[in-house]
C-alpha cells in the first residue's frame, strides 16, 4: 500500500531508531507512514535509510541525520531543518533514551495526551498528580507565528513525584513545545537544579495511521538517580498512558470541533487539533 500522502505528514522529520540501537549488526526493518523502511549502519558508522517496496526492493534512498541520540528521516521535503534543541548543547544534563514502545493508536492521540495536564492525578496517581489536587489552573496554548510551532505555556501542577530525583511533592512549572505536528517536548522545573528545566520528549514514529512506535527521551539534571532508575520511572509512566491511549475511540484524532466535548482544561487539545486542521494533516486524523 502506497497511498498518496499529504505534505503535512510527509514533510516532517521522524525518528526511526535510537543511534545507540542502530548498529552495524542490527539493521532496523520498520515502517513509516505505512511504507516499508530499512535503516542500516555500515561498519564505518555511516547510516543509510531507504524506502522499500512491500517485497523488500529498494525504492529510493531517504535523507538521514543523527541528532539528539536518534536517527531521523523524512519521506517528503521538509521546508524547515530539524528543529533545534539548544538544551542538548548545555552542560550538566544527562540523556536517557527510553527505548521504543509500541502503541496501537494515532500519533495525534499520543501527542495530545502528552500535552494534557488533567489526566495526571487519575492516570499517574501519586506520581504526576494526586487527588484532590486535580485542578488545572489556566494556561496558554498558542501558535508561534514566527517559528510555526505550537507552544503551551504557564502551566503549573501539584506533583507528588515530578521526576525520578524528586524527594517529595512540589508545585511544578511546565511548558510544552510542539515543533511539528508529530513531535513534542516538555520542559518542567528540575528537582536537580533550581531555576532550570528538565526535558522530556516524545517522537512518535507512525508505522500506520493507528499504530506507532514511540521514541522517548529525558534530558535531566539529576546526580542522584541511577540511569536505570530514571529510565524505568519514565517507562512506567509511559505504560500507564498506553492503556488509556489504546482505549480512546476513535483511534484517529478527530479534528472536527464538534467531535468531542472539551472543557477549559483542554485548551491545548483544542489548539493542537485546530493547528493540525489548518496545516492540512490527514494521516492519523478523523
Amino acid at each position: 500500500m502506497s497511498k498518496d500522502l499529504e505534505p503535512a505528514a510527509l514533510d516532517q522529520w521522524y525518528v526511526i531508531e535510537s543511534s545507540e540501537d542502530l548498529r552495524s549488526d542490527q539493521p532496523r526493518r520498520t515502517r513509516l507512514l505505512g511504507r516499508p523502511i530499512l535503516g542500516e549502519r555500515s561498519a564505518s558508522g555511516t547510516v543509510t535509510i531507504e524506502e522499500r517496496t512491500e517485497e523488500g526492493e529498494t525504492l529510493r534512498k531517504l535523507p538521514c541525520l543523527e541528532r539528539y541520540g536518534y536517527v531521523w528521516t523524512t519521506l517528503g521535503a521538509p521546508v524547515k531543518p530539524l528543529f533545534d534543541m539548544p538544551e542538548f548543547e548545555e552542560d550538566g544534563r544527562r540523556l536517557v533514551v527510553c527505548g521504543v514502545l509500541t502503541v496501537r493508536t494515532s500519533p495525534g492521540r499520543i501527542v495530545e495526551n502528552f500535552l494534557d495536564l488533567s489526566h495526571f492525578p487519575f492516570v499517574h496517581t501519586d506520581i504526576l498528580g494526586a487527588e484532590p489536587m486535580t485542578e488545572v489552573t489556566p494556561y496558554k496554548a498558542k501558535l508561534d507565528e514566527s517559528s510555526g510551532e505550537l507552544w503551551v505555556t504557564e502551566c503549573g501542577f501539584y506533583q507528588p513525584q515530578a521526576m525520578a530525583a524528586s524527594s517529595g511533592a512540589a508545585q511544578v512549572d511546565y511548558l510544552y513545545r510542539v515543533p511539528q505536528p508529530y513531535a513534542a517536548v516538555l520542559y518542567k522545573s528540575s528537582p536537580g537544579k533550581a531555576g532550570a528545566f528538565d526535558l522530556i520528549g516524545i517522537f512518535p514514529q507512525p508505522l500506520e495511521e493507528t499504530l506507532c512506535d514511540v521514541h522517548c527521551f529525558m534530558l535531566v539534571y539529576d546526580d542522584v538517580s541511577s540511569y536505570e532508575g530514571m529510565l524505568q520511572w519514565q517507562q512506567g509512566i509511559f505504560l500507564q498512558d498506553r492503556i488509556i491511549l489504546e482505549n480512546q475511540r476513535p483511534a484517529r484524532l478527530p479534528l472536527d470541533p464538534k467531535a468531542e466535548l472539551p472543557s477549559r482544561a483542554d485548551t491545548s487539545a483544542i489548539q493542537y487539533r485546530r493547528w493540525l486542521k489548518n496545516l492540512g494533516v490527514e494521516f492519523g486524523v478523523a
Partner: protein
Amino acid sequence: MIRLYDFVLSGSCYKVRLFLSLLGQDYETVPVGFYPAKEHKKPDFLQLNPLGQLPVLRDGDLVLRDAQAILVYLASKYDPSGSWYPDDAAARGRVAMWLSFAGGELMTASAARLHDVLNYPFDVASLREQARQAFVVLDDHLAEQELRDCPWVAGPEPTVADIACFPYVALSNDGGIARDEYPAIERWLARVMVLPGFIDMPGILTPWSGEAAEEPAA
C-alpha cells in the same frame, strides 16, 4: 533487607512486588535494564540467574529465581498466618498446580504483551490463541469455585496461586487480548484488587483509574 532485582514493566516482577505489599514486608529494588539494554542477558546478571530472567530475589545469603518459587518462599517465611501457602496436603497440591499454570500456560499472555509493547519478534496470533485457551480454563475453574463458595484460585482464601496468576491476566489488554468473554475472571480480578495492601502496576486498569476515576471521589 530483602532485595528484588526488578523491571518496572515486568508482570513477573510485579507478582513479587504485589505479594510483598500484601504482606506489608519492607524490601528494596535494584532496577535491571531489561529494555532496551537487555542487561538480564549479560554476564553480570547471568551470575545471579543463569537463565537470564527476572525477577531474582536475594534475602540474606539466599538467592532465588522464578516468581512462583519466590512467592512460595516469601509466604513460607513472612506470613505468620500461613494462609497464603496453606499447610495441608491437598491445598498445597492445588496451589502448586496453579503456580505451574501461572508460570506455564499463562506466560503466553506475557509473550503476546512483549510482542505488542516491546516489539519482540513472536507469532502473536498463535500466542493470543494459546492465552485465550488458558483463560477459558481459568474462567471455567473460577466459575465452579464461585458455585462452591470458594472464590479463589486454590481454595476458600487467597493464596500465592492467585498472586501468581493475577498479573498477566490483568495485563492482557497490553498484549491485545480482551477479556469480555471471561466474566468469572473479571470478578476474580476485582476481588484481588480490593485485597488490603493491593498495589497496581502500569497497564492495569483498576476500578479507580482511567474513566472510572472521573466519578466524584467520596
